[in-house]
């Protein structure tokens, strides 16, 4: 058992890649076999994550299950992995959503082999970001994940996929450019990329060794801070860097959207939590107001943008902007609380952070579910235009029920998961960023509006006869599709009524990190 304990993170990280390599050697016409191999293979990291979760020591401090190997000695970068409560939650989200996304892709029959391999490579890329404790390794996985996603959109997407995939790629790479430069700069100054060391060194640094003397430390820190912020803000996405997202989502295949919204957006928020808050506490404090402003803008404009859509998938895509805004609001509250001695603030910011991290997890569940449900109806009707639907509830009662359930989670109905996290965020942010919190809460009103608009247009109102008879007759959600939704719905309800099990883990990270 020592073996598993010692190498657990590596096993989780690389098992998807291994499965992908196995699939590479399968005959490409055996589609069924490939699908099942991919699905069962992707359950391996999930099972291992459950082992990880059960062995995670809630009373231990710092990063657990650390592994460190030599990687790039010339520039002192090591392959350093480790998890805390924050990473663990995200790892669970990733390994949970990937099998579901693969199951959701069972209807893909075009080049199944390449498709499944890309998905599994993507999983390794995402997990690597969540586990990395070395800045360079973080960056490596951060960029690597782009490649499979690009090809998933570009090859299996819908009509405008070429435009959307290139926009996604160039936007993210362009955003990461500043991150790349800032990472290099840190490596030059400290001669190490090890995160736990940088946590100690960089915030306390008073001089820039190894760099030309005319560089002012304060300016460099501020510029590097914004370089990090922009890289992650593009990914979150924060207004005004969000414009790639509706395009990418709309054109991506259903499972691609699930992973994109479910996990990829979290990479950005994770970057804020893992890198920006610990590395730049002072700069984050100075610019917390700006972050909160952007977060509020994302919440309000995201909701308005969503309400204005006639494309069902775009509606859900803009809702991601809206929901991720709450994550950043919680982060901004924590940033603004740095160094404060006010007991109210001291008591509130951990609540906001807990809420933000839980919101990341929750949005992962509900956004993946929503995108899947959009995909289900798109597959049957070949349209996503809300005006083409109407009154479908009697035709597909089970689908309608699931859609309403998931929408309600997204809307923040008490009893479901979205409520818990959004409440924690606004509760924690209130004493720190009162004005922004008030505006954000008003934004929640529009969240309700667009979600109800979506439900109304699809399920209620006069029945569009086109879908009722003949060859276009709408068929009910099938067993496989219900199987995709079932775990999501169980988790949504579970966290909604009893969030303690996951908040314990998250709170562990919040307390030890900040």
């Amino acid at each position, binding site marked *: 058992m020592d073996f598993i304990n010692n190498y657990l993170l590596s096993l989780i990280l690389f098992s998807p890649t291994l499965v992908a390599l196995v699939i590479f050697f399968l005959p490409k016409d055996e589609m069924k076999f490939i699908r099942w191999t991919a699905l069962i293979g992707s359950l391996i990291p999930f099972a291992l994550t459950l082992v990880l979760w059960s062995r995670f020591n809630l009373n231990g401090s710092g990063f657990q299950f650390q592994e460190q190997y*030599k*990687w*790039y*000695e*010339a*520039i002192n970068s090591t392959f350093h992995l480790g998890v805390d409560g924050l990473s663990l939650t995200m790892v669970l989200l990733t390994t949970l959503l990937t099998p579901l996304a693969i199951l959701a892709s069972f209807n893909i029959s075009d080049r199944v082999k390449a498709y499944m391999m890309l998905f599994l490579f993507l999983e390794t890329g995402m997990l690597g970001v969540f586990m990395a404790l070395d800045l*360079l390794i973080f*960056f*490596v*996985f951060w*960029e*690597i994940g782009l*490649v499979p996603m*690009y090809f998933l959109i*570009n*090859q299996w997407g819908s009509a405008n996929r*070429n435009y959307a*995939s*290139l926009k996604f*790629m*160039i936007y993210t*790479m*362009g955003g990461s*450019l500043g991150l*790349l*430069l800032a990472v*290099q*700069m840190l*490596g*030059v100054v400290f001669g190490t990329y090890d995160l736990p060391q940088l946590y100690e060194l960089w915030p306390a640094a008073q001089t820039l060794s*190894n*760099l*030309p003397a005319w*560089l002012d430390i304060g300016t460099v820190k501020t510029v590097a801070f914004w370089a990090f912020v922009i890289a992650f803000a593009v990914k979150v996405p924060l207004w005004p860097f969000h414009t790639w997202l509706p395009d990418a989502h709309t054109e991506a295949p259903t499972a691609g959207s699930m992973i994109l919204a479910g996990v990829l957006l979290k990479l950005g928020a994770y970057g804020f939590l893992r890198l920006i808050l610990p590395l730049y506490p002072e700069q984050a404090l100075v610019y917390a107001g700006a972050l909160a402003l952007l977060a509020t803008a994302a919440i309000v404009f995201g909701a308005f943008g969503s309400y204005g859509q006639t494309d069902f998938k775009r509606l859900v895509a803009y809702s991601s902007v809206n929901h991720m805004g709450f994550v950043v609001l919680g982060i901004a509250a924590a940033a603004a609380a740095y160094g404060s001695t006010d007991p109210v603030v001291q008591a509130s910011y951990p609540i906001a952070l807990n809420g933000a991290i839980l919101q990341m997890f929750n949005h992962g569940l509900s956004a993946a579910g929503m995108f899947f449900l959009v995909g289900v109806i798109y597959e049957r009707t070949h349209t996503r235009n809300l005006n083409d639907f109407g009154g479908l509830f009697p035709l597909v009662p089970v689908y309608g029920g699931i859609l309403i359930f998931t929408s309600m989670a997204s809307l923040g109905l008490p009893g479901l998961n979205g409520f818990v996290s959004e409440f924690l965020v606004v509760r924690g942010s209130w004493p720190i960023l009162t004005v922004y919190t008030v505006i954000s809460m008003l934004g929640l009103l529009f969240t309700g509006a667009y979600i109800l608009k979506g439900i109304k247009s699809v399920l209620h109102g006069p029945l569009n006869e086109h879908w009722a008879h003949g060859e276009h007759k709408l068929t009910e959600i099938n067993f496989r599709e219900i199987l995709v939704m079932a775990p999501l719905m169980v988790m949504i309800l579970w966290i909604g009524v009893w969030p303690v099990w996951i908040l314990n883990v998250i709170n562990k990270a919040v307390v030890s990190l900040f």
Partner: protein
Amino acid sequence: MTFPILSIIVFTPIVAGMLILLMPAQRKNEVRVMALAAATFALLLSIWVYFTYDSNAAGYQFQETYNWLPALGIGYHVGVDGMSTPLVLLTGVVMFTGVLISWGIEDRPREFFAFLFILASGVFGVFVALDLFQLFFFYEIAVFPMFLLIAIWGWIVTREYAAMKLTLYLFIGSVVSLVGALAMYWVSYQNTGVLSFDMLQLEQANFSEQFQIIWFLPVFLGFAVLGGIWPFHNWSPDGHVAAPTAVSMFHAGVLMKLGAFAALRVGIMLLPQGAQFWSPLVMTFAAIAVVYGAFIAFMQEDMKYMIGFSSVSHMGLVMLGLSTLNKTGLTGAGVQMFSHGVMTALFFAVTGMIYDRAHTRQIPELGGMSKVMPFAAIGFIIGGLVSMGMPGFSGFIAEFPIFMGVWYVQPWVAIIASISIVITAAYIMRNIRDVFFRPMPENLEGHITDVNVLDKVAIVTVCVLMIVIGLFPRVMVPMVQTGVDNILRLLGGA
């Protein structure tokens, strides 16, 4: 007397070339088999050198010395260090894959392979030369066959123009360098009383600072012309475009490294104080090449021109690394030479495969190649990711330290040069999308066939190299570092 492995590597191609010339011209298949056998032999020997080079001992290894013209101090002295060993391997790989790719040449394959092998011998010779005279000797041997290869087997539209332009540029560059080399030879004689072209001897010659400052620029830039340094780069894309596939692979894959390598070996290592004095200028040129090359590549519609200018951009990164004169930057430059060599060889190989089938290289006229030649598509995509500096591939391993090295010296240059990464991503992804994934134009429908097994072997060979170095930098980086340590010793720094 140890086994003269380096000499065997150097002379295998030229001897094989002579033997091929003795074969009857119509026995094309025998010629090809002979060529492949010689290339495989050279590749295996260079692999052997690569893996037996002792990175712990460092320094020049596998040395051989013979007196050639003792009265003038000219000797035959070969040896490899951590900087040149990867380049010997690179030459072996490009030679091997180049022969595989050229299997289908029907027009006088005998002469083609003979000239190609003379070229290969010249390249091997420069990389292992430790004698300045010998270095020039092999350098000219490498340049001269290019003229014939391009002018005879090249793209009919521009081949005479390009061959002439290329040869004139390179000869002028090397003549300028040669003047500098003779100056070094004489001043070294005055300083030490020993007449010698031996570079290990010249390193000890105590050139005055003023001498170094005067002569560094002609020597360095004369060689750097072949490395495609801005503003002397514009022979290079023309040459790429006009050259037949295997020659383009050699040209971009190895020959441009020859320029950068000779500029390093003769310019920086023999005139270190001159290098320190002029490094800001070299860095400026290099940074312009990096960004400007990427922008021009973005504007191209001909695939070969696009790759040609991307080579200017990537060789600019090599020069950028060299100009930092610190350990990180030089290490990156060394790895980048190898990484860019295999990557661009792959690019030209795949472009050649497409051109052979579609008879056009115009990106707007191509499309849908991934359906008919998926293997080539995957190869090109992997090459593209290397080109973009995507982590996990060798390009990242090389570019990252180069940028780090620049940070030590001049942060602004690092920031400006990094723009090229996004531009490169844009033109590479656009090219992949248009050529491979867009629907195939009707006039090409049915005319395109899949690549053959030899092409696949070539593609797999280079892809594996790029991925292995990307995932496990230790297979190459420590070796390059030993070479860099040697350079730093001459620079008098840490």
